């Protein structure tokens, strides 16, 4: 006996196996991200008044990435539709764009990460706080390009306190009380930001690998078993749309609100 319904649909459920499988998997993904979103909510409402960062991320970059993902989503579904009408070339084109979008997304995301890791908050012994990008660090001093603030709160709500000023500040090591970059340990916002977007980026990379495979070597299946291949594109597409969908929420809650 062979396993039934690997390609054609089972009459009473109307599904082929992989489609049932992917939706179940997505259900579990909903719970995975759901737990992280709950954590986000609790950390946010639990943060002391005025100490939840606003406007820390680069909105233009985030917007571009949103557009990139939306574009990749439509090309995915177009690629599948192309296969449905037997237009393999059109599939190749659309799916190629999807792959490209995935790479652009990851590229932009890495740049954003890099930017955060080189962004420092320096607490001086005299109580002042310097904040900006690291230019140079030696044994005796650090140089950043940024600004001084009196109160830590000013660093938080950047909607209210716009971050003007890009002076070059050099601080002697012995004046420094604490040096902290905007990595995950900076505060709970950065922690949840890196965790959520990191996990999301892993999904993007995983998806890109699958899409790349199906675009390249995997597409040979088209000639042997077109229906199965079309199904595979549908399945990977469903996953990809889900990844897009998560981003649709991540973008406003992390970048905008």
């Amino acid at each position, binding site marked *: 006996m062979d396993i039934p319904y690997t390609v054609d649909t089972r009459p009473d459920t109307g*599904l082929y196996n992989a489609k049932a499988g992917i939706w179940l998997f997505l259900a579990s993904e*909903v719970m995975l991200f759901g737990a992280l979103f709950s954590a986000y909510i609790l950390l946010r409402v639990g943060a002391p008044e005025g100490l939840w960062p606003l406007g820390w991320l680069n909105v233009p970059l985030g917007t571009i990435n*949103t557009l990139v993902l939306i574009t990749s*989503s439509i090309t995915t579904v177009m690629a599948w539709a192309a296969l449905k009408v037997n237009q393999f070339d059109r599939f190749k084109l659309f799916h190629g764009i999807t792959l490209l979008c995935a790479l652009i997304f990851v590229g932009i995301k890495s740049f954003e990460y890099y930017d955060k890791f080189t962004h420092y908050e320096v607490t001086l012994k005299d109580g002042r706080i310097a904040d900006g990008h690291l230019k140079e660090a030696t044994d005796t001093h650090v140089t950043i390009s940024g600004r001084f603030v009196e109160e830590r709160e000013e660093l938080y709500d950047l909607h209210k306190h716009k971050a003007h000023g890009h002076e070059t500040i050099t601080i002697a090591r012995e004046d420094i009380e604490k040096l902290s970059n905007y990595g995950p340990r900076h505060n709970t916002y950065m922690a949840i930001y890196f965790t959520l977007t990191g996990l999301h980026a892993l999904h993007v990379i995983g998806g890109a690998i699958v899409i790349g495979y199906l675009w390249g070597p995997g597409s040979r299946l088209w000639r042997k078993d077109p229906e199965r291949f079309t199904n595979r594109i549908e399945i990977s597409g469903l996953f990809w749309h889900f990844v897009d969908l998560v981003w*649709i929420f991540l973008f406003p809650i992390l970048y*905008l609100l």
Partner: protein
Amino acid sequence: MSEKHHDEHFGHHVRRYLLVFYALLLGTAITVAVSYVPFTNHALNIGLGLVIAGTKAFLVAGYFMHLISERKMIYAILAFTVFFFVGLMFLTVWSFYDFPPLTITR
């Protein structure tokens, strides 16, 4: 089915996908724009942002993922998931709002 018929069908679908695509672009633009409008109450910004995100998510799930016209079985699976998702979110957050009086939580 003839090739021509196929193409017609395809065109029909593509038009719909493109429509959704434009709607998503528009949604993104609105979210970004709205976030720069300083409402008196920041909660309003948040609410609006989430409503738009929800709409976009609905479009992606409904049309790109074809949920609008999916099978009963998948609705059933997702109904459970939504129930538990809401349970997780709501009950956890609720628990943080019901402590004995005078409890300090931070």
